[in-house]
């Protein structure tokens, strides 16, 4: 918990915004590329990675807690 609360909230907000943009993008890609699987799967991978890293804090698994 080294970063400030406002910084953490801001990071969460920008991640959320990026997820929304990617969701709209994948909707557009599905229409433009007639449901092409590879690009849609890549977008899903990027979205999942963002959630796992920012929202789920996977890096805490190998971090030492002090409290």
């Amino acid at each position: 918990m080294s970063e400030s609360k406002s910084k953490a909230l801001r990071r969460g907000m920008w991640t959320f915004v990026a997820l929304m943009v990617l969701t709209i993008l994948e909707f557009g890609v599905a229409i433009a590329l007639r449901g092409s699987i590879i690009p849609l799967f890549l977008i899903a991978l990027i979205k999942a990675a963002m959630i796992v890293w920012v929202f789920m804090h996977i890096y805490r698994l190998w971090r030492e807690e002090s409290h």
Partner: protein
Amino acid sequence: MSMVTTTSQEHHGEDHSHEPPWPVQLKSNRLGMWLFMFSEVFLFGALLTARFILWGQFRPRLSQEIGLVATVILLFSSWFVYRGQTAIEFGDRKAFQRNFLLAAIFGTLFLIGVVFFEWNIFGLSASIGPIELFGHLKPSDGVESGIFFAMTGWHALHVVTGVMLLLIMWNKGRRGEFTPGRSWGVEGAGLYWHFVDVVWVFYYPALYLMGLPM
């Protein structure tokens, strides 16, 4: 009798000398939760694989707009959970309660979207312009349709569990059970909810967007 009571208290309530230090416990809790989620990946992954085997390069005619709205709702709920987790880590109990309650409400809205609109359990029919509001697939339509209900049904069951967990944590938070350093319940429930969101991140394009309409 009093001796028995004292011994019982030592074992169940007050004597924590046999427990590992909190940082070690917390690390074990996190590892256990991630291993649990990893095991769930195989289950959801198997259903996803079945979709590609059964549907291949095609997909049933589902309302892509309903899927999009449901996805946005679930993303909102995940964001609220993140905000709630951050709030409790910094000791802001009010913000935690507000955000977890909002997340539970949005999770319920997602469920309504799936069960009421997509599964169309009441057999309704309506549309706004070209957008069909209610789904028309039935579990009895064959194995291709069955996989749709297996994927959305199994995911919806996890959403129900997640909403219950969020509400339990909200209630515990209301009673003041969490402090900045001791909020594993909130973190665990949050991890579970985000995992449910990650599953949908893959299920949404697989069900609604990938492939040509059948």
